[in-house]
């Protein structure tokens, strides 16, 4: 068996490979649903209804997509420059915690149109700081950022737990450990009344467009791609690699922090350790499904959100454990990796 690099990439392959990757993952998920004894096609039907079947279902799917698009962008931006930021979960919580602490205090008594942007920036900055540390450790000491960002996720989550049981504790929460709620004027407005869908969706899609523009039209976008493809060549060509990677860390960490800020201001209104069911980790899947393209992240985020919301509905109706969504999505990541490989290489006997 020999592996050869393809000279040209036919269009049918570039489009067909990701689609078949998702189909293969869905088929494997079908086998697992069958294992539970539930009728497979009815189960998938219920999932579709659960994700898109009513106005409420659609708004729920869109609401769920907001943090996934933002953490997906965070992973896409970092991975493109070969900065392995696996710490989006921790950065998300750092952003959420910053927003909760500042929002509750509202130090300047600012009105909503100032307070909300201020809080969003604060959340992003908190995420940035959290990622700059491991990237700086890599640049200075050669410490692999994968392990440090992963370990920091656990540290941050424990710190959140410490905060909401200590200095940020909400005394009116009937003993539930959660932070003091942010004031009503800091909450994001609803996009659709009587739903949870909030203006954070605009923030997420806007962020995707901004990242697209940065990648396409700025020197930094080119340099970050060069740093990922061939760091030595980029350095030889005079690109400031360290500085570029630190900027990438700011962008990626900032996006993950923003996800936490938007989730607090848009959905929950407070921080608890249940704020994110692994949005940071799922963001990696979203980014890979989108082949690291910022516009693709919007669609991949919607797909993954639909899987999760649909699986919840299906699980309630048919008793199939809702973990099936996690299984399908993570399997799609693996099949997508192989699909992307097949668009770049061919296998010869």
């Amino acid at each position: 068996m020999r592996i050869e690099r393809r000279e040209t990439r036919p269009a049918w392959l570039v489009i067909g490979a990701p689609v078949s990757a998702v189909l293969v993952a869905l088929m494997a998920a079908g086998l697992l649903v069958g294992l539970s004894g539930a009728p497979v096609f009815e189960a998938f039907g219920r999932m579709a209804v659960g994700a898109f079947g009513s106005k409420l279902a659609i708004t729920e799917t869109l609401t769920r997509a907001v943090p996934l698009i933002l953490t997906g962008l965070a992973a896409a931006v970092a991975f493109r420059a070969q900065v392995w930021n696996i710490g989006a979960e921790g950065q998300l919580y750092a952003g959420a915690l910053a927003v909760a602490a500042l929002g509750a205090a509202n130090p300047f008594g600012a009105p909503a149109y100032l307070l909300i942007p201020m809080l969003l920036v604060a959340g992003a900055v908190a995420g940035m700081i959290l990622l700059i540390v491991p990237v700086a450790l890599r640049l200075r000491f050669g410490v692999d950022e994968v392990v440090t960002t992963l370990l920091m996720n656990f540290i941050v989550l424990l710190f959140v737990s410490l905060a909401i049981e200590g200095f940020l504790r909400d005394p009116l929460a009937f003993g539930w450990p959660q932070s003091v709620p942010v004031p009503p004027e800091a909450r994001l407005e609803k996009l659709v009344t009587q739903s949870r869908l909030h203006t954070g969706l605009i923030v997420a899609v806007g962020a995707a467009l901004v990242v697209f523009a940065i990648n396409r039209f700025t020197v930094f976008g080119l340099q970050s791609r060069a740093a990922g493809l061939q760091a030595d060549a980029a350095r030889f060509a005079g690109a400031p690699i360290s500085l570029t990677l630190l900027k990438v860390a700011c962008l990626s960490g900032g996006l993950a922090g923003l996800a936490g800020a938007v989730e607090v201001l848009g959905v929950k209104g407070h921080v608890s350790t249940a704020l994110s069911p692994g949005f940071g980790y799922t963001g990696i899947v979203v980014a890979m499904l989108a082949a690291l393209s910022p516009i693709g992240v919007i669609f991949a985020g919607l797909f993954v959100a639909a899987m999760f919301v649909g699986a919840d509905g299906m699980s309630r109706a048919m008793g199939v454990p809702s973990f099936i969504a996690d299984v399908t999505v993570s399997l799609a990541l693996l099949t997508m990796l192989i699909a992307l490989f097949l668009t770049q290489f061919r296998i010869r006997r």
Partner: protein
Amino acid sequence: MSDLWDILMTVGLWSSVLRIATPLIFGTLGALLCERAGVLNLGIEGIMTFGAMAGWLTVFNGGDLWTGMAMAALSGAIFGLLHAGMTVTLGLSQHVTGLGITLFGSSLSYYLFRLAVPVQGTPPTIEPFAPYPIPWLSDLPFLGPTLFSQTPPTYLAIGLALTLAYLLARTPLGLAVRMTGENPHAAEAQGLDPIRIRIAAVVVGSALMGMGGAYLTLAAFNSFFPTMVQGRGWVCIALVVFSAWRPSRALLGAILFALFDAYQLRLQTIFGKAVPYQLFLMLPYVLSIVALVAMSRRVRVPQALMKPYRRGER
């Protein structure tokens, strides 16, 4: 202050040190073997979770404890084969593949566990490994009740560390693995097959990771619950760096880490009122990062680590 010193010398502390260290020893040896052959296996966290689930479920359904360990090793090997197929045969990104396997392995084990054991008030339990005092040796003062009164998997873990140390450093097989991790082109020139060696190393290493997970459900605790691995896999990856890719130092590193972990648990009971318990729980993770930074300058990384090998390509 003398209190703190007294705790350090108690039998209870040291006996729990080896209990905490055992899954880390298995996991670190597994990750170390993969990395020595040139493959970073970030699937470890998911493989340990799956091993914990597979081992527990085997015993819960009437298998004996060693069958449970064997099933965990087998499932680990299967995930290892998946990882090796993607990263070694196809040469895909070791980072992303490993993370994908972690996400897949853990979500699949939660799913299968929920199918097998529907939600109940209290999670069902099994009868775990009992301590097996080694005759005569367990009568020794201090060492007897600590080192020689552990459960059988702990002895296995220590034995494996010493065996792997010998195999890697002193046998042709070990030399072949190390050569593949340092310079696969040179290995190929010697008539070795780097691709096969890497696949074998990842499969065996992943089997060890699975056994480390199974220790959690079959000896340390007696039930399975989601997120029970709690980053132990990532700690193992850090311990590999700390050990400078040497099995004997990995054994010491895991014990040192466990000592710290056991000690902070004791400190919690003393200072729990004054200091939030979360600060103590953070310490092991903080310590791992500090160890990584401290060791990063001194250790020599296997030169071909994370570099995919394709025949005829440079």
